[in-house]
């Protein structure tokens, strides 16, 4: 039950939210049953729609293929098949692709955090005279849809200018372009803008150069925004499909997302669903641990894009 009339906690606990419905209104029967009922329905709907498919996936990952095909909604009619998970991890080599995904995510994470913090520091704290020009160039990339970059980027990776060496099948082809996220730079620069400038001045007077200022003053103060950028960097890398599909042609190097469609045609449904389950486990666990960063980042995203 969402609404328990009478026994309410002090309003101050929930003071942050908008009080569309005042405490007096909650006491009215129509509001309580209408609005409260809608809330209960929403919660049930969210459980069925948001959680349901994942619970089904978890169940089917350990169900024999034949049962999933004939009785998809039955709960273990002929017992569980834990072997699906093991078979997916070793025989279908999900373990290896999982590791590739991790390596790609770490590299992309580092590229994004490195570029966003150094550039944000230069534009927001050091503020050279030409900062405005660079910021304008950065912002224009936000308005260019990703599809415009796809083909020329691919051609550039196959035939890079100046260097006559193809970067196809090199992880650098995934890591480096990931760093070119104007959204990250803007997000970090805005956060740095709001840090108290007196602290920078004090550090300068104490003899700290720009590198010292960056490493020992600004970075330790920006943990919240680094958390947001990191969470989104890792998640975006974990989700990425088209770009690694294009530039990583060697199956031994491909991440899980690229391999999963192929795995589907190579193995039984039960093992395939176990592979899907393993692939979604890390983002789900990560989300449950870093929920605050996720939700705050998404809200910030709406605010910044506006």
């Amino acid at each position, binding site marked *: 039950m*969402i609404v328990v009339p009478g026994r309410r906690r002090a309003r101050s606990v929930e003071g*942050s*939210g*908008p*009080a*569309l*419905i005042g405490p007096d*209104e909650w006491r009215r029967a129509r509001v309580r049953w209408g*609005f409260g009922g809608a809330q209960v329905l929403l*919660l049930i709907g969210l459980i069925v729609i*948001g959680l349901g*498919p994942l619970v089904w996936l978890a169940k089917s990952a350990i169900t024999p293929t034949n049962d999933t*095909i*004939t009785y*998809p*909604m039955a709960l273990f009619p002929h017992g569980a098949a834990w072997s699906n998970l093991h078979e997916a991890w070793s025989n279908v080599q999900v373990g290896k692709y999982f590791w590739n995904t991790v390596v790609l995510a770490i590299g992309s994470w580092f590229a994004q955090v490195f*570029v966003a913090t*150094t550039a944000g520091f230069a534009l927001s704290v*050091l503020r*050279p005279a030409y900062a405005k020009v660079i910021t304008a*160039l*950065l912002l224009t*990339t936000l308005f*260019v849809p990703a*599809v*415009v*970059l*796809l*083909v*020329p980027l*691919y*051609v*550039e990776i*196959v035939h890079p*200018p100046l260097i006559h060496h193809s970067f196809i099948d090199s992880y650098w082809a995934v890591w480096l*372009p990931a760093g*070119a996220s*104007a959204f990250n730079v803007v997000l970090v620069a805005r956060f740095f803008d709001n840090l108290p400038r007196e602290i920078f001045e004090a550090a300068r007077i104490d003899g700290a*150069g*720009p*590198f010292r200022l960056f490493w020992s003053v600004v970075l330790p103060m920006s943990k919240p925004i680094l958390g947001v950028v990191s969470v989104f960097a890792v998640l975006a890398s*974990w*989700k990425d*499909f*088209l770009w690694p599909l294009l530039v990583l042609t060697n199956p031994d190097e491909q991440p*899980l*997302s690229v391999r999963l469609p192929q795995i589907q045609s190579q193995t039984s449904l039960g093992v*395939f*669903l176990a592979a899907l389950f393993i692939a*979604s486990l890390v983002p789900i666990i990560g*989300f449950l641990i870093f*929920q605050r960063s996720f*939700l705050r980042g*998404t*809200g*910030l995203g*709406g*605010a910044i*894009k*506006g």
Partner: protein
Amino acid sequence: MATVDPIDVHWTDSEPAVLSGREYRRARRTPLTWVRGGGLATLLFLLPMLFVFGAFSWYPIVRTVIMSVQHTNLVSPATWVGLDNFRAVLNDPVLPKAVENTAEFAGLALIFGYPVPLVAAVLMSEARRFRGVYSALAYLPVVIPPVVAVLLWKTFYDASPTGVFNTILGWVHLGPYPWLQSQQTALPSLVLESTWANAGGTVIIYLAALTGVNRELYEAASVDGASLWRKVWHITIPQLRGVLLLTMILQIIGTAQVFLEPYLFTSGGPANATVTVLLMIYNYAFGNSLGGDYGSATALSLMLAAFLALFSLLYLRLTRSWSSK
């Protein structure tokens, strides 16, 4: 020290003081003073960004425009072909179907996925308990890798009577439906999955925006005896209009570039019923094992980008009076 070595004088910090104002300014402009003033350090900090954006963002944007008027096959040198690529794309018999499908996808996604998150966010923001549970449940599908979501839903859409959705609908004596295998239901099926996968993000954006609504407006309206419905209609929605306009544009820009769903669910089939503009671009560039038609691919992607830019401008123009009210 009373006496100073004349050679040392040259290097002391007090040196500029003996120069006239004009000489001083000229002296400041030397590279050495620029380095001392922190100019080089600033540039060093900007270097990673300049390199990464130069190589992987600014240069490819310019390159798209050049490639769209060239014939390139990566083997022989590129040749200038003027607007031939654009003409070839516009004469492609698949293009009208792709544009129609993309528009239908975007339209259906708006119908499915635009009002529901708003209603959900309003209900959730007034929740007195489990507020975290609500938003976690809503956001959960967003963190699932899109490939996993599509492949999982592909299993759900199994057209046999024992498919997951057909089993559930069978309980209430509906179906079995062909889902992805019929020209009529394939595209709506794609939109349904895409809405499931993305609506949570919109809910969270609305929730964040709702915290910015001024509480005093609600309280004043309550004092004046406004009903709940009137408060939502006359306070909540007008207060959110900036975000509402924004999410609509973002959603249309996103759905106009839909690729993963048609690519993994149906490869554009059955009978081109789910071919989208982005799938066409992919097929031009990477669908042919004999070599990509990069000219047509970049020409079409430029046309799509230009359309989206025009659309956004027009939309902002038309809604300006409402959004600045």
